[in-house]
């Protein structure tokens, strides 16, 4: 990028009339102000740039026999017109022409600092680089060879630790030598590719005659190609219509120049870094990389994710299920018995409402608290360690392999917690078709409530095999999601691919306090739901299963059940399971609360055992399958309506879920029956 005027270097020897002016440039927080304050002490004043709200500081100091004026330019990341600070910084340098610009950069984050240097080095003012924060770089094991950087840049580079006043004298000596001409400067600015250099020459030719004298014409041409709004507006006002139109044509035809110029700068930064900086591979980063090579591998990563899901279920059944049974037998059943005794004199319906409705329904759901706590703890642990982002990454790769839209990963990721944010998370997807497809399949991700239902029922039916069965059912629901995605993608998408760049956190040792807090908050949220939505639904189910005559067989619920029975029978479910499934529409845990009310769990030995004695294994598998894939809860359906803005899509989604879940449950029932499970 030949951004200087044709001469290859600047021979300095011109001393300003009066005090020499030094401009301090740099990014924010690079120690520029520390250096300024150290040099000027009380000899400084603060003002505003004319016409701008940007603050500036100016001061003076004595070094040797000379007095210097020093201006602290606003902190900027580059010299494009992206912010008022950047405009002010570059206008000062170009218009006021300070005698020296000192770029204060951080040795600890040199790459970030060098972008500004790549722009400063193109300006027709002598540049000295103050390589600050050498102490921080040393602490981080970063070795910057100042003399190598100096040779690579072609301008003086002085190591500094401004906070300890180290290197200040050397910096000022370098400034003095540059001003006196003792040090010759031959800057090595970024280069531009030959094909774009031709374009730049063409732009230069068009503007040369009209370019204001204060701006080097090469610099203006480069800024025009970069699409700098300030320079573009200025030249538009200055150029006659014919030249303006020709310039626009050139820029339009070469709109890739913007990237090419920036690309040249990054190539230049890369070269400087490779030449002068030795970056240690920090142990933590290297460990993370090593683990990630396995954990985020497209194939191995999937097996690991599947293994972790299996481990979650193993932990749940090993620790959670016995605790759940204990909670049920030691608390829910005695509380129920106590309520029965206390309400012995009350009307029968009052006792029934309290014991069967409230304690039966809510008690059954509250008894899954240990299971939920284990889920929350394991997910909290995976989140805190840094694994959940990897799980999303692996899932996204998986999605791509099967043709699902890449942008779907966020909703899919969110769906493991709750399907409501999964549906709402589709807002990040810009294409409507892609959004609708993702909304359609996102509720197939098993949310924590559905996993809890699974974890409650499987041990009762499958005992020691519960982990394996649950794990397979979760994988089945993910497989259904994938197959649905493939089919719908073929119909709606024609295999479009999109890109995602995900920043993955470093792995770190989990903080038990953070996880405990997370588990506490989520458990409280779960209990609140049990005390509100599930309580209300339990009372409603009790009322429907008691009224009008007090008998379940003649109740409204039984009548509703008999209407639904043929549909349920198709997949091996009786009317009670069918009704339980329907009530899961309000909240997924309601299916357990409903079964507890319908089977009078609180008075018996426990719902799990009752269910195991009532139903065959194929029926249990069909029920679990349909529960995992059935229409999502009311909150999710509400979110679908809100996000699609259409009842048609909402109903289509419900229809799709019923079709998919009933189909999968039917296949499961038939397969399990045929295999004699």
């Amino acid at each position, binding site marked *: 990028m030949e951004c200087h005027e044709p001469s290859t270097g600047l021979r300095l020897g011109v001393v300003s009339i009066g005090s020499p002016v030094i401009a301090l440039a740099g990014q924010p927080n690079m120690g520029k102000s520390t250096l300024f304050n150290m040099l000027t002490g009380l000899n400084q004043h603060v003002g505003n740039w004319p016409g701008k709200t940007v603050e500036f500081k100016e001061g003076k100091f004595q070094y040797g026999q000379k007095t210097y004026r020093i201006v602290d330019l606003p902190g900027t990341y580059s010299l494009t017109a992206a912010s008022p600070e950047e405009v002010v910084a570059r206008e000062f340098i170009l218009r006021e022409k300070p005698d020296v610009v000192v770029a204060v950069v951080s040795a600890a984050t040199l790459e970030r600092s060098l972008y500004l240097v790549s722009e400063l080095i193109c300006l027709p003012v002598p540049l000295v680089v103050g390589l600050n924060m050498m102490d921080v770089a040393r602490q981080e094991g970063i070795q910057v060879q100042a003399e190598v950087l100096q040779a690579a840049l072609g301008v003086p580079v002085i190591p500094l630790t401004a906070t300890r006043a180290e290197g200040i004298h050397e910096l000022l000596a370098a400034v003095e030598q540059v001003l006196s001409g003792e040090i010759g400067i031959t800057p090595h600015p970024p280069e531009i590719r030959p094909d774009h250099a031709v374009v730049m020459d063409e732009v230069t030719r068009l503007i040369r005659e009209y370019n204001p004298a204060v701006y080097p014409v090469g610099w203006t041409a480069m800024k025009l190609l970069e699409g700098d709004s300030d320079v573009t507006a200025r030249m538009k006002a200055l150029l006659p219509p014919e030249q303006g139109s020709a310039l626009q044509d050139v820029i339009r035809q070469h709109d890739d120049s913007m990237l090419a110029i920036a690309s040249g700068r990054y*190539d230049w930064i890369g070269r400087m870094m490779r030449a002068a900086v030795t970056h240690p591979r920090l142990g933590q980063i290297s460990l993370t990389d090593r683990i990630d090579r396995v954990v985020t591998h497209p194939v191995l990563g999937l097996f690991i994710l599947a293994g972790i899901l299996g481990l979650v279920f193993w932990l749940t059944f090993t620790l959670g299920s016995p605790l759940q049974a204990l909670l049920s037998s030691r608390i829910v059943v005695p509380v129920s018995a106590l309520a029965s005794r206390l309400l012995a004199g009350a009307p029968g319906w009052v006792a029934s409402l309290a014991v069967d409705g409230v304690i039966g329904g809510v008690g059954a759901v509250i008894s899954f608290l240990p299971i939920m706590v284990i889920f929350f703890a394991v997910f909290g642990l995976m989140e805190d360690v840094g694994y959940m982002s990897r799980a999303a990454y692996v899932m996204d790769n998986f999605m*791509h392999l099967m043709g699902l839209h890449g942008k779907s990963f966020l909703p899919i990721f969110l769906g493991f917690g709750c399907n*409501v944010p999964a549906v709402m998370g589709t807002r990040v997807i810009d294409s409507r078709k892609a959004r609708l497809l993702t909304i359609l399949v996102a509720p197939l991700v098993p949310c924590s409530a559905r996993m809890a239902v699974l974890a409650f029922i499987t041990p009762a039916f499958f005992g020691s095999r519960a982990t394996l069965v649950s794990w397979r059912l979760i994988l089945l629901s993910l497989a259904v999601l994938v197959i649905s995605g493939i089919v719908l993608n073929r119909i709606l998408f024609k295999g479009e691919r999109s890109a995602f760049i995900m920043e993955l956190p470093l792995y770190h040792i989990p903080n038990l306090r953070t996880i405990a807090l997370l588990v506490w908050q989520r458990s409280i949220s779960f209990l609140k739901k049990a005390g509100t939505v599930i309580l209300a639904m339990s009372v409603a189910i009790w009322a429907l299963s008691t009224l009008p005559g007090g008998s379940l067989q003649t109740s409204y619920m039984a009548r509703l059940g008999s209407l639904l029975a043929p549909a349920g029978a198709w997949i091996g479910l009786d009317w009670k399971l069918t009704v339980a499934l329907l009530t899961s529409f309000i909240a997924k845990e309601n299916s357990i609360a409903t079964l507890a009310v319908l089977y009078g769990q609180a008075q018996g030995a426990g719902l799990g055992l009752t269910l195991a004695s009532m139903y065959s294994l194929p029926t249990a598998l069909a029920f679990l399958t349909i529960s995992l894939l059935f229409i999502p809860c009311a909150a999710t359906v509400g979110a679908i309506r809100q996000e699609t803005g259409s009842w048609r899509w909402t109903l289509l989604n419900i229809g799709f879920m019923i079709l998919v879940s009933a189909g999968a449950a039917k296949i499961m029932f038939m397969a399990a029956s045929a295999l004699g499970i």
Partner: protein
Amino acid sequence: MLERLVAEIRQGGTLQPSRLAGRLNVSVDLVNMMLEDLARRGLIAEVNAACGQPCRGCPLVGECVSANNQNRTWMLAGKKG
């Protein structure tokens, strides 16, 4: 280098800054800088993976596994470079 990064991104798929850094033979910091640059130019867009505004009012937000996800994620934007 920025052009090579754009080319890598346009191939599609899920990418990590660290792997992109490996392919371009530069540091992860430089890749992150370039990603921020591309976002400023409108070629990619940063998306918030955390459960933010869209989840306001969700009764189950407390259970959301990614409510605290603070990692940056970028996706290809519509603008052509």
